[in-house]
């Protein structure tokens, strides 16, 4: 049939015998206990979303306990200490263990099939990120049952969360646990960015990319720039708690507001980090349900990019009551208004799409309508709280609780439910029940409005947030009782949803329910463990609608790479804008290193919480060992070019600027640079709050040490360059002694530079615990030392690979990546020296 309709497809029929069997063998899933070794993103994505839903249920139960306590004034169901743990855990778990991981999970689960890649480029990184999240998150939950759960609020404001006012380990649990889970989110983000940009099916140029891929690209980019602020903040607060470095202690030159800036520089984009992917679900679901291509694709892409950026200009609108200058606040007020425009564009694009088609009121459609209703209210109350004087009344009251739940439930939970009902047929032999699903949607809709709308009133009646009890007679009784009833209606809806899952979810990606919605995008192609049998050429945004035989041809193996060309797991890497095939990337198969590295990384962080330093260091060493083992096998080197069909021969595993690992390293460097930028921000912020900078009596580090450090850094950079020269000019498999010396020399110079820097601080008599000035200088140096440590490990691997003959000529990706990172360390070191040594003189 397809022979006549599409004669110019790359691969002829019939396919050679054994080709499909070979593909299946390569992508076969491990069984039994070896499931833990799975690295395939579509499988990891399932684990991921399942875990996120589990955390959602847990945090939901905590909310029910709180609502039961607040049902009546002066209730004694829950005491103050448990209540404070409940709301801290509810917020933390919902934000960090449910919302971000859930949307990241949907990305990892859906993206490979949506862009018709066999897998995203760093499967082991995803597996590591998942296990780190799963293990770290579970231990974090357990803290509640041991009565050591954090209780200073999900925002952890010092000084309440600092050593003086929370001397027990509960804050450490939060700082180390959440800081660690952030790292896992960043790992996922790297995977998503490189995956979206480089593993799209041939022909899927940026203008034909599904909106969901756009939002995940922006989502991941936002994580790269927002989460380092959080990591910087948690690191500084943990340093203060553990070693008394006074970043936030006012008497010693610190400032509690520094935390608030760092926290909200992360925390505000966080809301959009959660919302954008959910909006992406809608941009996929609405056209299918309306049976019309998305109206305003370009407008939505614009809106997504705009939201992604503008959301970074809003962080101070969580700080309107801290006494900042009026004009600073009004910038953020104005920025908050500006960010409403892209959201308006998206909402009207969906409405226009609905109008252009004929939407059946299926379960996902009900959730979409619920979203439009709830999220619009949340957006409108958001504009209200962006108004500075109004926020002075509304801030930290139940009005905000109402607003944020309208935004997050409307903007994320409803789209997620829509997405689950919509995409379950892709991962399950049976779809979920339409009948039950509609009841779930109605219950959630009624429950959410009943629970949260009255909270607007409670707040305006003067009820503050985070109170475990309230007196009779302030007019808060009725609204609170309504809210509690609403919360239990929501719980009933969620329980019914779980019942539906239990009855109808039969996980299977290979024999799934299929394209039940008659959708137009590639995730609905027939799939196996290897995703699609062959990788299609994409010519439009809704290929399944526009290319009628696509599914059959793909399944028959008529498109690219119908089998395995290298005998390994592999996918096609394409150019980032036009999606032209560039090379075939071999992908790792199942292995224990991600699981064990993640488990021991989690163990190291959690042991640090309880101050078990030696076991923590041991676990950390094992984790690093695991990662080294993983890196050792990551770069298998180029192979002979292979034919992927249609006479197209592609190189296998290239090196240099176009390599996927280079792209991943660039993203990692952006992350590292943002974290460094946050430390510099902290430096300048502390400067503005301290009249004396450096404080009277603080020694000045000798300029000669700094000069030595700078020269060493420059030498390191030159050595990386020279090393590359040696490696490329002698195209032979075993590079010479010179190369090894240069690698060792570069690492040693970078190390010596940071040591010289630290020594100069110490010699000048500066101590980190003396003042915020000393603390921030040592923090910047410590961060430089941390990156240098990572560089030493990477250089060590390159050195060892050179000894083992696993590097040379075109086989040098591990060196390229190390050298790129090495150059970054040099640049950062030079900037740090310039700021910390030259600025105090300029300022005074």
């Amino acid at each position, binding site marked *: 049939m397809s022979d006549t309709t599409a004669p110019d497809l790359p691969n002829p029929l019939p396919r050679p015998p054994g080709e499909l069997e070979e593909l299946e063998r390569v992508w076969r899933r491990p069984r039994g206990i070896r499931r833990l070794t799975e690295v395939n993103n579509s499988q990891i994505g399932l684990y991921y979303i399942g875990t996120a839903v589990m955390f959602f249920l847990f945090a939901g139960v905590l909310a029910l*306990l709180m609502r*039961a306590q607040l*049902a009546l004034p002066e209730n004694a169901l829950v005491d103050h200490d448990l209540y404070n743990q409940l709301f801290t855990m509810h917020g933390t778990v919902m934000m960090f263990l449910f919302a971000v991981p859930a949307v990241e999970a949907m990305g990892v689960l859906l993206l490979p099939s949506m862009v018709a890649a066999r897998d995203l480029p760093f499967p082991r990184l995803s597996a590591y990120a998942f296990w780190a999240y799963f293990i770290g998150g579970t231990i974090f939950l357990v803290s509640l049952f041991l009565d050591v759960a954090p209780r200073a609020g999900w925002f952890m404001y010092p000084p309440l969360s600092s050593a003086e006012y929370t001397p027990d380990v509960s804050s450490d649990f939060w700082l180390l646990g959440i800081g660690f889970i952030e790292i896992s989110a960043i790992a996922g983000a790297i995977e998503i960015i490189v995956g979206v940009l480089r593993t799209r099916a041939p022909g899927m140029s940026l203008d034909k990319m599904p909106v969901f891929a756009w939002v995940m690209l922006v989502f991941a980019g936002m994580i790269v720039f927002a989460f380092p602020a959080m990591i910087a903040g948690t690191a500084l607060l943990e340093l203060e708690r553990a070693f008394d470095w006074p970043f936030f202690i006012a008497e010693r030159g610190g400032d509690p507001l520094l935390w608030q800036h760092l926290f909200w520089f992360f925390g505000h984009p966080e809301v959009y980090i959660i919302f954008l992917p959910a909006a992406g679900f809608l941009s996929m679901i609405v056209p299918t349900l309306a049976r019309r291509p998305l109206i305003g694709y370009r407008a939505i892409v614009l809106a997504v990019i705009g939201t992604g950026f503008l959301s970074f200009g809003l962080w101070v609108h969580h700080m309107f009551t801290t006494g900042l200058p009026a004009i600073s606040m009004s910038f953020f007020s104005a920025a908050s208004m500006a960010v409403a425009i892209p959201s308006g564009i998206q909402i009207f694009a969906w409405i226009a799409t609905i109008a252009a088609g004929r939407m059946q009121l299926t379960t996902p459609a009900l959730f979409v309508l619920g979203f439009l209703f709830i999220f619009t209210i949340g957006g409108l109350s958001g504009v209200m709280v962006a108004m500075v004087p109004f926020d002075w009344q509304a801030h930290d009251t139940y009005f905000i609780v109402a607003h944020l739940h309208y935004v997050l439930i409307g903007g994320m939970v409803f789209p997620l439910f829509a997405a689950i009902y919509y995409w379950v047929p892709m991962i399950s032999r049976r779809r979920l029940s339409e009948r039950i699903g509609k009841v779930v949607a109605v219950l959630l809709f009624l429950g959410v409005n009943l629970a949260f709308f009255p909270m607007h009133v409670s707040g305006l009646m003067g009820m503050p947030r985070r109170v475990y009890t309230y007196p009779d007679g302030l007019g808060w009784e009725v609204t609170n009782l309504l809210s509690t009833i609403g919360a239990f209606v929501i719980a009933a809806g969620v329980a019914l949803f779980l019942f539906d899952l239990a009855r109808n979810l039969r996980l299977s990606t290979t024999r799934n329910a299929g394209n039940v919605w008659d959708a137009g995008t590639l995730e609905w192609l027939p799939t196996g463990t290897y995703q699609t049998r062959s990788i299609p050429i994409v010519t439009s945004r809704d290929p399944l609608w526009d290319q009628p035989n696509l599914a059959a041809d793909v399944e028959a193996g008529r498109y690219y790479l119908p089998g395995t060309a290298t005998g390994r797991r592999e996918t096609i890497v394409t150019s980032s804008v036009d999606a032209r095939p560039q090379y075939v990337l071999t992908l790792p198969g199942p292995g224990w290193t991600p699981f064990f590295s993640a488990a021991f990384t989690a163990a190291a962080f959690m042991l640090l919480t309880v101050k078990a330093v030696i076991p923590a260091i041991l676990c950390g060493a094992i984790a690093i060992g695991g990662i080294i083992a993983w890196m050792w096998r990551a770069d298998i080197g180029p192979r002979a070019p292979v034919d992927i069909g249609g006479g197209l021969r592609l190189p296998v595993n290239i090196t240099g600027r176009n390599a996927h690992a280079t792209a991943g390293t660039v993203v990692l460097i952006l992350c590292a640079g943002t974290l460094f930028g946050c430390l510099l921000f902290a430096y300048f912020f502390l400067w503005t709050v301290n009249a004396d900078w450096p404080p009277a009596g603080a020694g000045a580090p000798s300029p000669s040490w700094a000069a030595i450090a700078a020269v060493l850094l420059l030498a390191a950079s030159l050595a990386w360059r020279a090393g590359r020269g040696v490696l490329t000019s002698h195209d032979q498999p075993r590079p010479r002694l010179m190369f090894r010396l240069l690698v060792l020399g570069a690492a040693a110079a970078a190390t010596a530079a940071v040591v010289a820097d630290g020594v100069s601080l110490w010699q000048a008599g500066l101590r980190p615990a003396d003042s915020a000035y000393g603390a921030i200088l040592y923090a910047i140096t410590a961060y430089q030392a941390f990156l240098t440590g990572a560089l030493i490990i990477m250089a060590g691997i390159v050195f060892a690979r050179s000894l083992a003959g696993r590097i040379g000529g075109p086989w040098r990706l591990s060196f390229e990546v190390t050298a790129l990172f090495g150059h970054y360390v040099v640049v950062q070191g030079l900037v740090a020296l310039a700021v910390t040594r030259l600025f105090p003189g300029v300022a005074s």
Partner: protein
Amino acid sequence: MTVARRLVSTGVAASLLLAAGCDRDAAPQTRIVADGDPGHGRQLIAEVACGVCHIIPGVRGAAGTVGPSLAGFAERNLIAGVLPNTPSELARWVRDAPSLVPETAMPPMPLSEDEAVNVAAYLLTLR
């Protein structure tokens, strides 16, 4: 108590609470016929905060343990183990306990005579 046990018991209590509904207006029927308005009495008890020292059924937040629990007060024969538990004695007692029993820790409370009668009326509904 460990948090785990507290969570479980709180959860159970929460579901009972929701099953039982709000008990605010479910004051028990009185056996002793006393003058006065028990409803106003209960309101006064909340306003002067007798609950700081006493457990008083039907009054929210009244969980104090400084003095004796007033649960089942109508069934008691004696006030403070000394005075007969009659409406008039009780009304005098809640207004000015030390004048009746000098060794008591209970201070005089800011209630008028009529108010004290109402408070007594409420306490005598507690069985």
